[in-house]
């Protein structure tokens, strides 16, 4: 989907059945054949509040939102990312 649909951005859950969202994020940014678009990550376990946390080091990652995500917060962040 990411390649064919060329979305403007991705909302990514971390706890996924086959691989973690962090891995998806890494894969995306390491493979230049993927469109490099902004990503907002949603996770129930906000590992750390430290912005230097290694997992947060990714060019495409714009925001980490704690689940449950409020629609207000989400739409606000999306708007910000897309602008």
């Amino acid at each position, binding site marked *: *989907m*990411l390649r064919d649909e060329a979305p403007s951005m*991705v*909302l990514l859950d971390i706890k996924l059945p086959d*691989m973690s969202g962090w891995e*998806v994020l890494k894969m995306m940014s390491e493979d230049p054949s*993927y469109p490099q678009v902004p990503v907002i990550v949603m996770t129930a376990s906000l590992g750390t509040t430290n912005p230097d946390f290694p997992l947060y080091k990714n060019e495409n990652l714009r925001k980490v939102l704690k689940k449950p995500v409020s629609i207000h917060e989400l739409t606000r962040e999306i708007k910000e990312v897309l602008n």
Partner: protein
Amino acid sequence: MAYGMLRQGPRAIGTLEYNLIRKDGTSIPVEVHIALLRDAQGKTSGFVGINRDISERRYAQRKLEAWARWQAVVATLGQRALSGIEPDALIHETVNMVADSLGTEYCGFLGLMPEGDRLILRDGVGWKDGMIGSVVVEAGKNSQAGYTLLQAEPVVVEDLPGESRFTPAAFLIEHNVLAGMTVLINSKEQPYGILGAYTSHQRHFTPEEISLLQSIANVLAMAIDNRRMLEAEARARQNAEQDNERRLRALAMVSHELRTPLTSIKGFASTLLADDVVWDARQQSDFIRTIDEEADKLASLIAQMLDFSKIEAGVFVLLPARQSPHSLVAAAMPHLQELAAGHKLVIRVPETLPDVVADTQRVGQVLENLVENAAKYSSLETPIRISARLHEKFIEVSVADGGPGIPVQERENIFQPFYRTSNTAILKAKGAGLGLTICKGIIEAQGGRIWVAENPDPGALVSFTLPLADPAERNRVIDDRFKILIIEDEANIRKLISVNLSARGYDVIEAEDCPTGVGDAA
């Protein structure tokens, strides 16, 4: 010889002052010392008079006298001002004192009108009947008063008809005014006006006289300033007291409102837990349903209070998006139907209306509140109508019911926080008194307004406006919609995010796992 006689013992008989007329007709004040001259036998043989020019001294004396008199005027005026006299009465006394102490035929107080472009003769001495309160002059160079306002310093005129700095006002010409001086009555904000003394005779105004008039104007300005400040303070104090009272009442009301559902919840929970009674399944589920309902009420009350405090604090966050009024109302419909149960909900929102910029969820909240009120205050089976129309640069949405309507005297107040109606017909309704305040906050934050409209039919009619979207932006948004990929395994969360983003104009594509999301297979 005279000298010799004087030496023999002249007897001064005295000093007197008189005006000596010079050859050219001018007079000078002189002091003359006169002494009799006597011969050896003591017979008066003549007199000696010494004239001394005392015009300097006389001038200084006059000045001193005038100065003392003016000081007295300023002092009296200051005292009157301190006595708490009404500004208008003080102005009246002032113009009389000015005319008296300067010996001018006319004195006038020209008050600056609120728009700041004209002055009106508010009070004065000497003017023809009917002029006070009706003569108006332009600010600026079309009157001496206006010119004084521009200059912000005293303006002295000795030949008004020949004046070139400004055009004399007609009413001064009408009174044959020849000379005059005007000073500014200034204040911290806008000047109050001009104080002027005028005469139809030739008259020279000395620097002392000019500064006297200015001092009087300053006392007047201070008195008016003080008065206004006192009035403002009194008003502020009264407002604060009312505010405080309202808050206390609100607090009492809010605690009562919170306690009511809490009492039910606690009561039915304890009832269920009682170990001396056995409730059957039907009773149990009835109690639990009550607890559930009351918990909802409590939650909505708390949500209202949070919204209210955010609005009050000015930190209310909105997510406005471009959409049609029709879809805005449609989004709220499921909940509106529920709230209007028992009534007939009539929707008249044409699909052709142009787009607005609004927060779907928040406008939905406003509609819900208005429909809920409508349902509460009108009898069952009566219709509740929601309509929308284009009005200038806004879409005007109205909610009308078939209830008793909102009395005219309450229409402003019902948007006040914690306002309680005194109308017994609708007193039975409960709530924290915040619903409409929040509606007002939501609508105003989006650039609209909300009000109780004049209703030709019986029943309440509440309208609000939402600003139209910029038509130029329309194509851009539609042609260039953002597409968002959601990768989330929980179907319900995916759906929640998806419907919300779609409603805000985004294209949404969903993936439940990584292969679908980032793989090429799908």
